[in-house]
Protein backbone atom coordinates (compact mmCIF):
# COMPACT_ATOMS: atom_id res chain seq x y z
CA UNK A 1 0.00 0.00 0.00
CA UNK A 2 2.82 2.31 1.04
CA UNK A 3 4.77 1.30 -2.05
CA UNK A 4 1.84 2.18 -4.31
CA UNK A 5 1.39 5.57 -2.66
CA UNK A 6 5.09 6.43 -2.95
CA UNK A 7 4.98 5.36 -6.62
CA UNK A 8 2.09 7.78 -7.26
CA UNK A 9 4.02 10.56 -5.53
CA UNK A 10 7.14 9.77 -7.56
CA UNK A 11 5.15 9.89 -10.81
CA UNK A 12 3.44 13.14 -9.74
CA UNK A 13 6.71 14.91 -8.89
CA UNK A 14 8.40 13.50 -11.97
CA UNK A 15 5.62 14.86 -14.16
CA UNK A 16 5.74 18.22 -12.34
CA UNK A 17 9.49 18.48 -12.94
CA UNK A 18 9.10 17.59 -16.60
CA UNK A 19 6.34 20.18 -17.04
CA UNK A 20 8.42 22.82 -15.22
CA UNK A 21 11.26 22.16 -17.65
CA UNK A 22 9.42 21.50 -20.90
CA UNK A 23 6.57 24.03 -20.77
CA UNK A 24 8.91 27.08 -21.04
CA UNK A 25 10.97 25.27 -23.65
CA UNK A 26 7.84 24.47 -25.64
CA UNK A 27 6.74 28.11 -25.21
CA UNK A 28 10.06 29.35 -26.61
CA UNK A 29 9.89 26.89 -29.50
CA UNK A 30 6.28 27.79 -30.26
CA UNK A 31 7.14 31.51 -30.12
CA UNK A 32 10.13 31.01 -32.47
CA UNK A 33 7.75 29.52 -35.08
CA UNK A 34 5.32 32.51 -35.07
CA UNK A 35 7.42 35.12 -36.85
CA UNK A 36 5.00 35.29 -39.75
CA UNK A 37 1.57 36.44 -38.67
CA UNK A 38 -0.98 33.59 -38.54
CA UNK A 39 1.44 30.95 -39.87
CA UNK A 40 3.67 28.49 -38.03
CA UNK A 41 7.03 28.33 -39.81
CA UNK A 42 10.81 28.38 -39.57
CA UNK A 43 11.28 31.96 -40.78
CA UNK A 44 13.20 33.00 -37.63
CA UNK A 45 15.55 30.02 -38.13
CA UNK A 46 16.05 30.93 -41.79
CA UNK A 47 16.99 34.49 -40.80
CA UNK A 48 19.42 33.26 -38.15
CA UNK A 49 21.10 30.83 -40.55
CA UNK A 50 21.22 33.55 -43.25
CA UNK A 51 23.01 35.99 -40.94
CA UNK A 52 26.80 35.90 -41.63
CA UNK A 53 27.46 37.11 -38.05
CA UNK A 54 25.82 33.91 -36.73
CA UNK A 55 28.16 31.77 -38.81
CA UNK A 56 31.13 33.92 -37.83
CA UNK A 57 30.23 33.49 -34.15
CA UNK A 58 29.53 29.78 -34.63
CA UNK A 59 32.85 29.21 -36.45
CA UNK A 60 34.78 31.19 -33.85
CA UNK A 61 33.20 29.45 -30.84
CA UNK A 62 33.50 26.05 -32.53
CA UNK A 63 37.22 26.60 -33.20
CA UNK A 64 37.78 27.85 -29.64
CA UNK A 65 35.90 24.83 -28.27
CA UNK A 66 38.03 22.37 -30.25
CA UNK A 67 41.29 24.06 -29.21
CA UNK A 68 40.07 24.17 -25.59
CA UNK A 69 39.22 20.46 -25.66
CA UNK A 70 42.55 19.45 -27.20
CA UNK A 71 44.58 21.46 -24.67
CA UNK A 72 42.38 20.45 -21.71
CA UNK A 73 42.72 16.76 -22.56
CA UNK A 74 46.49 17.16 -23.03
CA UNK A 75 46.77 18.81 -19.62
CA UNK A 76 44.29 16.82 -17.57
CA UNK A 77 44.83 13.25 -18.76
CA UNK A 78 48.56 13.12 -17.83
CA UNK A 79 47.98 15.19 -14.68
CA UNK A 80 45.15 13.05 -13.31
CA UNK A 81 47.03 9.88 -14.36
CA UNK A 82 50.13 11.06 -12.51
CA UNK A 83 48.04 11.99 -9.48
CA UNK A 84 46.44 8.51 -9.37
CA UNK A 85 49.81 6.84 -9.73
CA UNK A 86 52.11 8.89 -7.56
CA UNK A 87 50.10 11.12 -5.23
CA UNK A 88 46.61 9.60 -4.76
CA UNK A 89 46.32 11.48 -1.46
CA UNK A 90 46.24 14.76 -3.43
CA UNK A 91 42.84 13.93 -4.90
CA UNK A 92 40.78 15.89 -2.32
CA UNK A 93 43.00 18.96 -2.96
CA UNK A 94 42.50 18.59 -6.71
CA UNK A 95 38.76 18.27 -6.09
CA UNK A 96 38.71 21.65 -4.38
CA UNK A 97 40.98 23.35 -6.93
CA UNK A 98 38.98 22.13 -9.90
CA UNK A 99 35.69 23.27 -8.41
CA UNK A 100 36.93 26.89 -8.01
CA UNK A 101 35.51 28.04 -11.38
CA UNK A 102 32.06 27.25 -9.94
CA UNK A 103 32.77 29.36 -6.86
CA UNK A 104 34.59 32.34 -8.38
CA UNK A 105 32.24 34.36 -10.61
CA UNK A 106 33.17 34.50 -14.30
CA UNK A 107 33.44 38.29 -14.17
CA UNK A 108 36.19 38.04 -11.53
CA UNK A 109 38.10 35.62 -13.77
CA UNK A 110 37.79 37.96 -16.77
CA UNK A 111 38.94 41.03 -14.87
CA UNK A 112 41.82 39.02 -13.40
CA UNK A 113 42.89 37.89 -16.86
CA UNK A 114 42.55 41.39 -18.36
CA UNK A 115 44.39 43.13 -15.52
CA UNK A 116 47.24 40.60 -15.54
CA UNK A 117 47.70 40.03 -19.25
CA UNK A 118 46.82 43.39 -20.82
CA UNK A 119 49.81 45.18 -19.30
CA UNK A 120 53.55 44.67 -19.78
CA UNK A 121 55.29 42.32 -20.01
CA UNK A 122 52.48 40.24 -21.60
CA UNK A 123 50.11 42.71 -23.31
CA UNK A 124 48.13 39.84 -24.79
CA UNK A 125 45.06 41.95 -25.49
CA UNK A 126 46.82 44.10 -28.11
CA UNK A 127 46.34 41.63 -30.95
CA UNK A 128 43.38 39.44 -31.76
CA UNK A 129 45.34 36.18 -31.93
CA UNK A 130 47.01 36.81 -28.57
CA UNK A 131 43.59 37.69 -27.12
CA UNK A 132 42.43 34.32 -28.45
CA UNK A 133 45.18 32.69 -26.39
CA UNK A 134 43.71 34.41 -23.37
CA UNK A 135 40.23 33.24 -24.41
CA UNK A 136 41.37 29.62 -24.65
CA UNK A 137 43.09 29.87 -21.26
CA UNK A 138 39.87 31.22 -19.77
CA UNK A 139 37.78 28.52 -21.43
CA UNK A 140 40.12 25.82 -20.08
CA UNK A 141 39.59 27.18 -16.57
CA UNK A 142 35.81 27.43 -17.01
CA UNK A 143 35.53 23.89 -18.38
CA UNK A 144 38.02 22.47 -15.84
CA UNK A 145 35.40 21.12 -13.36
CA UNK A 146 33.73 19.09 -16.12
CA UNK A 147 36.91 17.86 -17.76
CA UNK A 148 38.61 16.92 -14.48
CA UNK A 149 35.59 15.08 -13.16
CA UNK A 150 35.01 13.17 -16.38
CA UNK A 151 38.63 11.99 -16.48
CA UNK A 152 38.64 11.32 -12.74
CA UNK A 153 35.59 9.06 -13.05
CA UNK A 154 37.24 7.30 -16.01
CA UNK A 155 40.45 6.72 -14.03
CA UNK A 156 38.46 5.32 -11.12
CA UNK A 157 36.83 2.76 -13.41
CA UNK A 158 40.17 1.15 -14.31
CA UNK A 159 43.00 -0.18 -12.14
CA UNK A 160 45.49 2.49 -13.23
CA UNK A 161 48.41 1.32 -11.10
CA UNK A 162 48.25 -2.38 -11.98
CA UNK A 163 47.67 -1.74 -15.70
CA UNK A 164 50.66 0.62 -15.71
CA UNK A 165 52.85 -1.91 -13.95
CA UNK A 166 51.69 -4.70 -16.27
CA UNK A 167 52.57 -2.59 -19.30
CA UNK A 168 55.92 -1.57 -17.81
CA UNK A 169 56.83 -5.18 -17.08
CA UNK A 170 56.23 -5.84 -20.80
CA UNK A 171 58.71 -3.11 -21.72
CA UNK A 172 56.49 -0.02 -22.11
CA UNK A 173 57.80 3.46 -21.42
CA UNK A 174 55.59 6.03 -19.64
CA UNK A 175 54.56 7.53 -22.97
CA UNK A 176 53.64 4.11 -24.38
CA UNK A 177 51.60 3.27 -21.27
CA UNK A 178 49.61 6.49 -21.69
CA UNK A 179 49.18 6.10 -25.44
CA UNK A 180 48.43 2.36 -25.61
CA UNK A 181 46.69 1.61 -22.32
CA UNK A 182 45.43 4.61 -20.37
CA UNK A 183 44.01 6.87 -23.11
CA UNK A 184 42.20 4.07 -25.03
CA UNK A 185 40.56 2.98 -21.78
CA UNK A 186 39.54 6.56 -20.97
CA UNK A 187 38.01 7.15 -24.40
CA UNK A 188 34.47 7.43 -23.11
CA UNK A 189 35.45 9.62 -20.15
CA UNK A 190 37.43 11.94 -22.43
CA UNK A 191 34.52 12.08 -24.87
CA UNK A 192 32.15 12.97 -22.01
CA UNK A 193 34.42 15.75 -20.74
CA UNK A 194 34.96 17.01 -24.28
CA UNK A 195 31.26 17.19 -25.15
CA UNK A 196 30.33 18.99 -21.93
CA UNK A 197 33.27 21.40 -22.43
CA UNK A 198 32.10 21.92 -26.03
CA UNK A 199 28.59 22.86 -24.90
CA UNK A 200 30.02 25.19 -22.22
CA UNK A 201 32.34 27.02 -24.62
CA UNK A 202 29.67 27.34 -27.32
CA UNK A 203 27.34 29.15 -24.93
CA UNK A 204 29.93 31.18 -22.99
CA UNK A 205 29.23 34.92 -22.84
CA UNK A 206 31.24 36.88 -20.26
CA UNK A 207 34.78 36.06 -21.42
CA UNK A 208 34.06 36.73 -25.10
CA UNK A 209 32.06 39.88 -24.33
CA UNK A 210 34.74 41.52 -22.17
CA UNK A 211 37.61 40.49 -24.42
CA UNK A 212 35.55 41.64 -27.42
CA UNK A 213 35.83 38.50 -29.52
CA UNK A 214 33.25 37.40 -32.13
CA UNK A 215 31.90 34.37 -30.23
CA UNK A 216 28.39 32.94 -30.39
CA UNK A 217 27.44 34.03 -26.83
CA UNK A 218 27.78 37.81 -27.37
CA UNK A 219 26.05 37.47 -30.77
CA UNK A 220 23.04 35.85 -29.10
CA UNK A 221 22.86 38.63 -26.52
CA UNK A 222 23.10 41.38 -29.17
CA UNK A 223 20.35 39.76 -31.24
CA UNK A 224 18.24 39.51 -28.10
CA UNK A 225 18.44 43.26 -27.59
CA UNK A 226 17.05 44.17 -31.02
CA UNK A 227 14.99 41.22 -32.27
CA UNK A 228 12.05 39.22 -30.91
CA UNK A 229 11.79 35.87 -32.73
CA UNK A 230 15.42 35.19 -33.68
CA UNK A 231 16.63 34.99 -30.03
CA UNK A 232 13.98 32.34 -29.39
CA UNK A 233 15.21 30.42 -32.44
CA UNK A 234 18.82 30.83 -31.22
CA UNK A 235 17.86 29.52 -27.78
CA UNK A 236 16.35 26.42 -29.39
CA UNK A 237 19.43 25.97 -31.63
CA UNK A 238 21.64 26.28 -28.56
CA UNK A 239 19.55 23.64 -26.73
CA UNK A 240 19.72 21.40 -29.76
CA UNK A 241 23.52 21.60 -29.80
CA UNK A 242 23.74 20.73 -26.11
CA UNK A 243 21.30 17.87 -26.45
CA UNK A 244 23.09 16.59 -29.51
CA UNK A 245 26.31 16.50 -27.47
CA UNK A 246 24.57 14.68 -24.61
CA UNK A 247 22.91 12.33 -27.09
CA UNK A 248 26.29 11.41 -28.54
CA UNK A 249 27.59 10.77 -25.04
CA UNK A 250 24.60 8.59 -24.21
CA UNK A 251 24.97 6.68 -27.47
CA UNK A 252 28.65 5.88 -26.95
CA UNK A 253 28.29 4.98 -23.27
CA UNK A 254 25.24 2.81 -24.06
CA UNK A 255 27.17 1.00 -26.78
CA UNK A 256 30.06 0.34 -24.45
CA UNK A 257 27.71 -1.05 -21.78
CA UNK A 258 25.94 -3.28 -24.30
CA UNK A 259 29.28 -4.73 -25.37
CA UNK A 260 30.24 -5.49 -21.79
CA UNK A 261 27.03 -7.44 -21.13
CA UNK A 262 28.30 -10.13 -23.50
CA UNK A 263 30.24 -12.22 -21.01
CA UNK A 264 31.27 -15.80 -21.65
CA UNK A 265 31.30 -18.24 -18.77
CA UNK A 266 34.10 -20.74 -18.50
Amino acid at each position, binding site marked *: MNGKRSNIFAIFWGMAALLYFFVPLYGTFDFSLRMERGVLGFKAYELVFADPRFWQGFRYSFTMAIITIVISVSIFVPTVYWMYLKIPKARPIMDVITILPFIIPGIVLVFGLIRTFSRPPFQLTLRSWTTDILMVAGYIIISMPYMFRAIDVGMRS*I*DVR*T*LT*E*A*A*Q*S*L*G*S*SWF*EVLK*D*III*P*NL*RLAILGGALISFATVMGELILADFLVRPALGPYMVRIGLTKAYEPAALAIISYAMTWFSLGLLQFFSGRSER*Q*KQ*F*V*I*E*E
Partner: protein
Amino acid sequence: MIHLELTHIHKTFGTSVAVDDFNLTVEQGEFISFLGPSGCGKTTTLRMIAGFELPTSGTIKLNDNDLTFISPNKRNVGMVFQSYALFPNMTVAQNVGYGMRIAKKQKSEIASRVTDMLSLIHMEKFTARYPYQLSGGQQQRVALARALAISPEILLLDEPLSALDAKIRFELRQEIRRIQQQLGITTIYVTHDQEEALSLSDRIVVMSQGKIEQIGNPFEIYNFPKTRFVANFVGSLNTAEVEVIDPQKGMLDMNGAQLETAGGLEGKSKGDKVMIAIRPERFNFVSEEKKENVLEGTVENITFLGSVVRVQMSIGGSSFNMDTFNRPSLILPKIGEPAQVTCSQKAVLVLTD
Protein backbone atom coordinates in the same frame (compact mmCIF):
# COMPACT_ATOMS: atom_id res chain seq x y z
CA MET B 1 74.24 -21.75 -11.77
CA ILE B 2 73.03 -18.72 -9.79
CA HIS B 3 70.42 -16.89 -11.83
CA LEU B 4 68.95 -14.41 -9.38
CA GLU B 5 70.69 -13.09 -6.31
CA LEU B 6 69.24 -10.86 -3.63
CA THR B 7 71.79 -9.59 -1.14
CA HIS B 8 71.02 -7.80 2.14
CA ILE B 9 67.79 -6.33 0.78
CA HIS B 10 66.24 -3.85 3.15
CA LYS B 11 63.11 -1.83 2.49
CA THR B 12 61.40 0.72 4.69
CA PHE B 13 58.26 2.77 4.13
CA GLY B 14 58.69 5.77 6.42
CA THR B 15 59.46 4.28 9.80
CA SER B 16 57.97 0.89 9.07
CA VAL B 17 60.33 -1.89 7.99
CA ALA B 18 58.80 -3.93 5.17
CA VAL B 19 61.78 -6.17 4.33
CA ASP B 20 64.74 -6.73 6.62
CA ASP B 21 68.07 -8.21 5.49
CA PHE B 22 66.64 -10.50 2.82
CA ASN B 23 69.23 -12.81 1.24
CA LEU B 24 68.41 -15.38 -1.43
CA THR B 25 70.07 -17.06 -4.38
CA VAL B 26 67.91 -18.71 -7.02
CA GLU B 27 69.16 -21.29 -9.50
CA GLN B 28 68.26 -21.23 -13.20
CA GLY B 29 64.88 -22.91 -13.71
CA GLU B 30 64.02 -23.07 -10.02
CA PHE B 31 60.46 -22.52 -8.75
CA ILE B 32 60.61 -20.49 -5.54
CA SER B 33 57.59 -19.52 -3.44
CA PHE B 34 57.49 -16.63 -0.98
CA LEU B 35 55.07 -17.81 1.67
CA GLY B 36 53.77 -15.76 4.58
CA PRO B 37 50.81 -13.89 6.02
CA SER B 38 49.64 -10.47 4.79
CA GLY B 39 52.16 -7.73 5.52
CA CYS B 40 55.16 -10.07 5.84
CA GLY B 41 57.02 -8.36 2.97
CA LYS B 42 56.69 -11.07 0.32
CA THR B 43 54.95 -8.88 -2.27
CA THR B 44 57.29 -5.96 -1.53
CA THR B 45 60.27 -8.24 -2.23
CA LEU B 46 58.68 -9.42 -5.47
CA ARG B 47 57.96 -5.82 -6.50
CA MET B 48 61.61 -4.94 -5.84
CA ILE B 49 62.66 -7.74 -8.19
CA ALA B 50 60.20 -6.39 -10.79
CA GLY B 51 61.50 -2.86 -10.27
CA PHE B 52 58.25 -1.32 -9.01
CA GLU B 53 59.86 -0.60 -5.64
CA LEU B 54 63.44 0.40 -4.96
CA PRO B 55 65.24 -1.26 -2.05
CA THR B 56 66.39 1.10 0.71
CA SER B 57 69.64 -0.86 0.67
CA GLY B 58 70.97 -4.09 -0.82
CA THR B 59 71.47 -5.38 -4.34
CA ILE B 60 69.49 -7.44 -6.83
CA LYS B 61 71.47 -9.29 -9.48
CA LEU B 62 70.15 -11.23 -12.45
CA ASN B 63 72.75 -13.27 -14.35
CA ASP B 64 75.35 -11.35 -12.36
CA ASN B 65 74.08 -8.00 -13.73
CA ASP B 66 73.07 -5.44 -11.12
CA LEU B 67 69.35 -4.74 -11.59
CA THR B 68 68.79 -2.77 -8.40
CA PHE B 69 68.17 0.63 -10.01
CA ILE B 70 67.18 -0.45 -13.53
CA SER B 71 63.69 0.74 -14.51
CA PRO B 72 60.98 -1.97 -14.68
CA ASN B 73 60.56 -1.75 -18.47
CA LYS B 74 64.23 -2.61 -19.04
CA ARG B 75 64.49 -5.67 -16.77
CA ASN B 76 62.95 -8.31 -19.05
CA VAL B 77 60.99 -9.71 -16.14
CA GLY B 78 57.51 -11.14 -16.77
CA MET B 79 54.90 -10.47 -14.13
CA VAL B 80 51.46 -11.92 -13.46
CA PHE B 81 49.18 -9.98 -11.11
CA GLN B 82 46.45 -11.10 -8.74
CA SER B 83 43.89 -8.94 -10.57
CA TYR B 84 44.98 -10.30 -14.02
CA ALA B 85 45.67 -6.73 -15.30
CA LEU B 86 44.74 -7.57 -18.88
CA PHE B 87 44.42 -4.46 -21.03
CA PRO B 88 40.64 -4.00 -21.44
CA ASN B 89 40.98 -2.26 -24.82
CA MET B 90 42.88 -5.16 -26.41
CA THR B 91 41.84 -8.62 -27.55
CA VAL B 92 43.48 -11.76 -26.18
CA ALA B 93 45.90 -11.87 -29.13
CA GLN B 94 46.74 -8.17 -28.79
CA ASN B 95 47.33 -8.58 -25.06
CA VAL B 96 49.66 -11.53 -25.56
CA GLY B 97 51.52 -9.80 -28.41
CA TYR B 98 51.76 -6.40 -26.71
CA GLY B 99 55.22 -6.89 -25.20
CA MET B 100 56.61 -8.01 -28.54
CA ARG B 101 54.98 -5.06 -30.31
CA ILE B 102 56.71 -2.73 -27.83
CA ALA B 103 59.98 -4.54 -28.56
CA LYS B 104 59.30 -3.72 -32.25
CA LYS B 105 59.34 -7.33 -33.45
CA GLN B 106 58.17 -8.28 -36.95
CA LYS B 107 54.41 -8.82 -37.33
CA SER B 108 54.91 -12.40 -38.51
CA GLU B 109 57.12 -13.15 -35.51
CA ILE B 110 54.53 -11.68 -33.15
CA ALA B 111 51.71 -13.69 -34.77
CA SER B 112 53.70 -16.92 -34.52
CA ARG B 113 54.65 -16.30 -30.88
CA VAL B 114 51.06 -15.41 -29.94
CA THR B 115 49.87 -18.67 -31.52
CA ASP B 116 52.52 -20.63 -29.61
CA MET B 117 51.64 -18.98 -26.31
CA LEU B 118 47.89 -19.46 -26.74
CA SER B 119 48.46 -23.08 -27.62
CA LEU B 120 50.59 -23.44 -24.46
CA ILE B 121 47.63 -22.31 -22.35
CA HIS B 122 45.06 -24.17 -24.53
CA MET B 123 43.25 -20.98 -25.59
CA GLU B 124 43.84 -20.96 -29.35
CA LYS B 125 40.15 -20.30 -30.06
CA PHE B 126 39.97 -17.16 -27.93
CA THR B 127 42.27 -14.84 -29.91
CA ALA B 128 39.57 -12.30 -30.84
CA ARG B 129 37.89 -12.16 -27.43
CA TYR B 130 38.19 -9.16 -25.14
CA PRO B 131 39.07 -9.63 -21.45
CA TYR B 132 35.48 -8.89 -20.35
CA GLN B 133 34.36 -11.85 -22.48
CA LEU B 134 36.53 -14.27 -20.49
CA SER B 135 36.12 -15.90 -17.08
CA GLY B 136 38.61 -15.22 -14.28
CA GLY B 137 40.56 -18.43 -14.92
CA GLN B 138 40.78 -17.71 -18.65
CA GLN B 139 41.93 -14.17 -17.97
CA GLN B 140 44.70 -15.38 -15.69
CA ARG B 141 45.83 -17.90 -18.32
CA VAL B 142 46.05 -15.09 -20.86
CA ALA B 143 47.97 -12.96 -18.34
CA LEU B 144 50.43 -15.85 -17.94
CA ALA B 145 50.82 -16.21 -21.71
CA ARG B 146 51.35 -12.45 -22.04
CA ALA B 147 54.09 -12.49 -19.40
CA LEU B 148 55.79 -15.47 -21.06
CA ALA B 149 55.49 -14.12 -24.62
CA ILE B 150 58.40 -11.70 -24.13
CA SER B 151 60.67 -14.64 -23.19
CA PRO B 152 61.49 -13.11 -19.81
CA GLU B 153 64.59 -14.01 -17.83
CA ILE B 154 62.42 -14.62 -14.82
CA LEU B 155 58.68 -15.02 -14.18
CA LEU B 156 57.10 -13.31 -11.18
CA LEU B 157 53.63 -14.31 -9.99
CA ASP B 158 51.93 -12.20 -7.33
CA GLU B 159 49.18 -14.31 -5.74
CA PRO B 160 47.85 -15.19 -9.20
CA LEU B 161 45.19 -17.63 -8.00
CA SER B 162 43.76 -15.72 -5.04
CA ALA B 163 40.80 -14.30 -6.93
CA LEU B 164 39.70 -17.66 -8.38
CA ASP B 165 37.39 -20.32 -7.00
CA ALA B 166 38.81 -23.53 -5.55
CA LYS B 167 38.31 -25.80 -8.59
CA ILE B 168 39.84 -23.36 -11.10
CA ARG B 169 42.63 -22.59 -8.62
CA PHE B 170 43.58 -26.26 -8.43
CA GLU B 171 43.53 -26.69 -12.23
CA LEU B 172 45.51 -23.53 -12.90
CA ARG B 173 48.04 -24.40 -10.21
CA GLN B 174 48.89 -27.61 -12.05
CA GLU B 175 49.00 -25.74 -15.34
CA ILE B 176 51.42 -23.13 -13.99
CA ARG B 177 53.78 -25.87 -12.78
CA ARG B 178 53.50 -27.75 -16.11
CA ILE B 179 54.30 -24.64 -18.14
CA GLN B 180 57.15 -23.64 -15.81
CA GLN B 181 58.74 -27.07 -16.11
CA GLN B 182 58.13 -27.21 -19.87
CA LEU B 183 59.86 -23.85 -20.41
CA GLY B 184 62.41 -24.27 -17.62
CA ILE B 185 61.88 -20.66 -16.58
CA THR B 186 63.04 -19.36 -13.21
CA THR B 187 59.89 -18.48 -11.27
CA ILE B 188 59.12 -16.57 -8.09
CA TYR B 189 55.63 -17.17 -6.76
CA VAL B 190 54.08 -15.13 -3.97
CA THR B 191 51.32 -16.74 -1.96
CA HIS B 192 49.79 -16.90 1.49
CA ASP B 193 48.35 -20.33 0.69
CA GLN B 194 50.60 -23.04 2.13
CA GLU B 195 49.01 -25.73 -0.03
CA GLU B 196 49.92 -23.81 -3.18
CA ALA B 197 53.47 -23.27 -1.99
CA LEU B 198 53.95 -26.88 -0.91
CA SER B 199 52.53 -28.37 -4.11
CA LEU B 200 54.29 -26.07 -6.61
CA SER B 201 57.70 -25.17 -5.30
CA ASP B 202 61.22 -26.47 -5.54
CA ARG B 203 61.99 -24.30 -2.52
CA ILE B 204 59.87 -22.19 -0.20
CA VAL B 205 60.92 -18.97 1.52
CA VAL B 206 58.74 -18.56 4.61
CA MET B 207 58.58 -14.92 5.69
CA SER B 208 57.26 -13.10 8.72
CA GLN B 209 57.45 -9.40 9.60
CA GLY B 210 59.86 -8.65 6.76
CA LYS B 211 62.31 -11.39 7.69
CA ILE B 212 63.07 -14.82 6.29
CA GLU B 213 62.04 -17.44 8.83
CA GLN B 214 63.18 -20.47 6.86
CA ILE B 215 64.23 -21.49 3.36
CA GLY B 216 63.85 -25.10 2.33
CA ASN B 217 62.13 -27.56 0.06
CA PRO B 218 58.48 -28.36 0.83
CA PHE B 219 59.43 -31.58 2.66
CA GLU B 220 61.86 -29.75 4.95
CA ILE B 221 59.51 -26.86 5.58
CA TYR B 222 56.63 -29.13 6.53
CA ASN B 223 58.45 -31.82 8.41
CA PHE B 224 61.27 -29.89 10.01
CA PRO B 225 60.10 -26.35 10.73
CA LYS B 226 62.89 -24.43 12.39
CA THR B 227 60.86 -21.77 14.14
CA ARG B 228 57.59 -21.61 15.96
CA PHE B 229 56.23 -19.30 13.26
CA VAL B 230 56.99 -21.76 10.43
CA ALA B 231 55.60 -24.63 12.43
CA ASN B 232 52.38 -22.75 13.09
CA PHE B 233 51.99 -21.22 9.64
CA VAL B 234 52.68 -24.30 7.54
CA GLY B 235 50.15 -27.02 8.27
CA SER B 236 48.26 -27.36 11.53
CA LEU B 237 50.28 -28.05 14.61
CA ASN B 238 50.10 -28.84 18.30
CA THR B 239 52.54 -26.84 20.40
CA ALA B 240 53.29 -27.07 24.10
CA GLU B 241 55.90 -25.82 26.53
CA VAL B 242 57.85 -28.65 28.17
CA GLU B 243 60.69 -29.03 30.62
CA VAL B 244 63.99 -30.70 29.69
CA ILE B 245 64.70 -33.69 31.94
CA ASP B 246 67.67 -35.27 30.14
CA PRO B 247 69.09 -33.37 27.14
CA GLN B 248 71.37 -36.27 26.11
CA LYS B 249 68.53 -38.81 25.94
CA GLY B 250 66.02 -36.27 24.66
CA MET B 251 63.73 -36.71 27.69
CA LEU B 252 61.05 -34.09 28.26
CA ASP B 253 58.29 -33.51 30.79
CA MET B 254 54.92 -32.07 29.89
CA ASN B 255 52.95 -31.48 33.08
CA GLY B 256 53.82 -34.95 34.32
CA ALA B 257 53.64 -36.73 30.98
CA GLN B 258 57.00 -38.04 29.77
CA LEU B 259 58.04 -37.46 26.16
CA GLU B 260 61.13 -38.26 24.12
CA THR B 261 62.50 -36.36 21.17
CA ALA B 262 65.03 -37.47 18.56
CA GLY B 263 67.04 -34.27 18.71
CA GLY B 264 67.06 -30.52 18.93
CA LEU B 265 68.16 -30.22 22.56
CA GLU B 266 71.77 -29.29 21.82
CA GLY B 267 72.93 -26.66 24.28
CA LYS B 268 69.98 -27.25 26.62
CA SER B 269 70.32 -28.18 30.26
CA LYS B 270 68.13 -30.05 32.70
CA GLY B 271 65.25 -27.83 33.85
CA ASP B 272 65.24 -25.61 30.73
CA LYS B 273 61.87 -24.81 29.22
CA VAL B 274 61.51 -25.48 25.48
CA MET B 275 58.67 -25.33 23.01
CA ILE B 276 57.77 -28.55 21.18
CA ALA B 277 55.55 -29.12 18.18
CA ILE B 278 53.79 -32.27 16.97
CA ARG B 279 51.81 -32.53 13.73
CA PRO B 280 48.25 -33.89 14.24
CA GLU B 281 48.82 -36.70 11.74
CA ARG B 282 51.89 -37.97 13.64
CA PHE B 283 49.72 -39.20 16.54
CA ASN B 284 48.26 -42.69 16.72
CA PHE B 285 45.97 -44.35 19.21
CA VAL B 286 48.02 -46.69 21.37
CA SER B 287 48.26 -50.28 20.29
CA GLU B 288 49.41 -52.80 22.89
CA GLU B 289 53.01 -53.16 21.75
CA LYS B 290 53.63 -49.40 21.66
CA LYS B 291 55.75 -48.12 24.57
CA GLU B 292 57.41 -44.80 23.64
CA ASN B 293 55.80 -41.36 23.99
CA VAL B 294 52.48 -42.55 25.33
CA LEU B 295 50.27 -39.68 26.39
CA GLU B 296 47.04 -40.02 28.31
CA GLY B 297 44.18 -37.62 27.89
CA THR B 298 40.45 -37.11 27.46
CA VAL B 299 38.60 -36.86 24.18
CA GLU B 300 37.05 -33.39 23.91
CA ASN B 301 35.67 -33.37 20.40
CA ILE B 302 35.59 -35.41 17.18
CA THR B 303 35.27 -33.71 13.79
CA PHE B 304 34.79 -35.49 10.46
CA LEU B 305 36.71 -33.74 7.66
CA GLY B 306 35.96 -36.18 4.85
CA SER B 307 39.05 -38.30 4.30
CA VAL B 308 40.39 -37.36 7.73
CA VAL B 309 38.88 -37.48 11.23
CA ARG B 310 40.21 -34.95 13.73
CA VAL B 311 40.11 -35.91 17.38
CA GLN B 312 40.65 -33.12 19.90
CA MET B 313 42.14 -34.28 23.20
CA SER B 314 43.09 -32.66 26.47
CA ILE B 315 46.57 -33.85 27.46
CA GLY B 316 48.46 -32.46 30.45
CA GLY B 317 46.27 -29.36 30.52
CA SER B 318 46.90 -28.59 26.82
CA SER B 319 44.56 -29.18 23.92
CA PHE B 320 45.97 -31.47 21.19
CA ASN B 321 44.56 -32.30 17.77
CA MET B 322 45.09 -35.74 16.33
CA ASP B 323 44.32 -36.62 12.69
CA THR B 324 43.58 -40.12 11.49
CA PHE B 325 42.48 -41.39 8.10
CA ASN B 326 38.79 -42.07 7.82
CA ARG B 327 37.98 -45.67 6.92
CA PRO B 328 34.92 -47.86 7.56
CA SER B 329 36.77 -50.01 10.10
CA LEU B 330 37.91 -47.01 12.16
CA ILE B 331 37.04 -47.33 15.86
CA LEU B 332 37.16 -44.09 17.79
CA PRO B 333 36.74 -43.39 21.52
CA LYS B 334 33.68 -41.45 22.56
CA ILE B 335 33.69 -37.82 23.61
CA GLY B 336 34.51 -37.52 27.31
CA GLU B 337 36.23 -40.92 27.46
CA PRO B 338 39.91 -41.30 28.42
CA ALA B 339 42.28 -42.38 25.63
CA GLN B 340 45.98 -42.99 25.04
CA VAL B 341 47.87 -41.65 22.05
CA THR B 342 51.45 -42.00 20.94
CA CYS B 343 53.93 -40.55 18.49
CA SER B 344 57.48 -41.35 17.44
CA GLN B 345 60.49 -39.53 18.87
CA LYS B 346 61.06 -37.92 15.45
CA ALA B 347 57.56 -36.48 15.52
CA VAL B 348 58.41 -34.36 18.58
CA LEU B 349 60.03 -31.25 17.11
CA VAL B 350 61.91 -28.84 19.37
CA LEU B 351 61.42 -25.31 18.09
CA THR B 352 64.32 -22.87 18.24
CA ASP B 353 62.39 -19.61 18.49
